[in-house]
């Protein structure tokens, strides 16, 4: 599986994640939904990354994120019928590797790309993207391909 992201969006998300440090950043990834979405081997081309407010309790925002479902609902309604959809999410891991955590797995939905940015000492330095395995027991890493 592959997640294609334009360089400008990578820079935007890295910059948002650095601003959020030491809290976690989070946001929506919007893409043209391919016919094989949710199946192994699919490729997603991200068209837009939309920052969301981390709604988690302030005391735990350094290690938790939650995207406002209202924002999700609003964007889904906006995109309805366009062929585009929310196809994944990004969030940051401050001072922790860009590996999904058990909590990420617990909350993971099938098919979506979960793109994690590791921010160390305020600097975004590594990112990896993950898709929940079909049996829901783990994550499969997908290639992050920088475009343009």
């Amino acid at each position: 599986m592959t997640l294609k992201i334009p360089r400008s969006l990578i820079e935007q998300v890295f910059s948002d994640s650095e601003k959020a440090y030491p809290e976690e950043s989070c946001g929506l990834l919007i893409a043209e939904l391919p016919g094989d979405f949710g199946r192994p081997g699919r490729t997603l081309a991200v068209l837009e990354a939309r920052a969301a407010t981390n709604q988690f309790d302030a005391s735990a925002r350094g290690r938790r994120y939650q995207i406002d479902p209202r924002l999700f609902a609003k964007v889904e309604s906006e995109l309805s019928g366009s062929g585009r959809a929310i196809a994944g999410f990004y969030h940051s891991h401050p001072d922790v590797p860009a590996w999904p955590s058990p909590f990420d797995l617990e909350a993971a939905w099938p098919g979506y790309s979960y793109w994690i940015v590791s921010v160390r000492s305020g600097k975004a330095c590594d990112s990896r993207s993950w898709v929940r395995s079909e049996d829901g027991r783990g994550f499969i890493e997908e290639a992050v391909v920088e475009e343009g």
Partner: protein
Amino acid sequence: MSVQVRLPAALRTFTGGQETVALEGRTVAEALDGLFARHPALRRQLLNESGKLRNFVNLYLNDDDTRDLKGLSTPVKDGDVILIVPAIAGGADATPPCAPSGDALGRMGGGADARDLTQEELLRYNRHIIMPEVGLAGQKKISNARVLCIGAGGLGSPLSLYLAAAGIGKLGLVDFDAVEASNLQRQILHSTAWVGRSKLESARERLKALNPNVDIELHEARLTAANALEILKDYDVIADGTDNFPTRYLVNDACVLLGKPNAYGSVFRFEGQASVFWAQRGPCYRCLYHEPPPPGLVPSCAEGGVLGVLPGVIGTIQAIETLKIILGAGRPLIGRLLLLDALAMEWRTVNLKKNPDCPICGKSPTIKSLIDYEAFCGVKQSPAAAPPEIAVEDLKAMLDRRESFVLLDVREPHEYELAAIAGSKLIPLGQLAARLGELDKSAKYVVHCKMGGRSAKAVKLLREKGFDATNVAGGIDAWSRRIDPTVPTY
């Protein structure tokens, strides 16, 4: 009522890719029942076993969360849109995997003086950082830690090289020797070009080339009771790579008095030992060896030899233990002595107990400050007990004057083959007691070995048996250096 249910991308695989499903029903629940009738697999995705909405699932009616309305009983009207909205959450672990399991040294990593890592360092230490047991927090601890290596020789070489590579913040080295040709077989810190020059300067050049981020502090001095506490006090971990008993006891006692951990290692011939002596948490070196062996009984590596690779194995174990102490990771070698027999290639671990009667770390210690370790180890004896000895210059003068005496060499035959002083008689120390009959009581004996240790023991034995015997201080080693350079040193 005719309503539409709109699915997020994640659930469209269950509807064959359909984004919206048109359904009939009077409430949200009825509409969902219709959905599940058409796409049964969706039920399990949205409801739990008791028919309640799963965590992470939100249902929106047009723009409102149904939880704010009447939940699943919320009535619907024609043209309404029910939106299934996944709750998107996650985050790093509650216990970040990078946080090591407890900080052994308290000060490191979290202190106000903790230094952050540069981009170059993040890359350099990547293979550390990606391990949960180390992580960024652990690498910061390493990069803010201060470690003192006593000795820049066989053990000090792998120790300091690996610790520098690991990015120890401040690496101190204590040594006062020059690099000798016979060091190069094992002291991989030094290269051939440095023979005859300062070991510490050689070490600094090599370690700085390996990792310029490490602050190298050189203590070019013999470690003594007078300077040990001052030198050791500013370090977090001491790694003892010394090759002699007085310094080993000195380092142990100083560590006990300062409360510092000592990553200990020693090598001899084909055998090695390693442990962590940390009196606050376990036994110290004196708990293991209450007193040093009689002088001359346990030869040093200079006298007995050592397989060059062996300090490489033991020194790296000391480096590992040092890093574990800094990280607070794993189980340090406290209360355990690791023994390696390289000929059999067998490792053994023996458990060490803290000795309640230990003179320095026991319940009522008798040693409360540093003592005279040369005297304690019998290396420097009191004038009355010390056997008479002469310098190699005196021996040369006696030979030149053709004085009548027997020059007795108490080394081993293979050493004798390597280097010998012309006209000497060889009786290895171990055979001396049994071969006294070969000796003439009326003769005068001048005894030497390699460095003067074994011959001192021989002189003591001979004098006890009524012989006129004198020791040669510094042995054939001093002879080669000061009198006859054609006699090889080894």
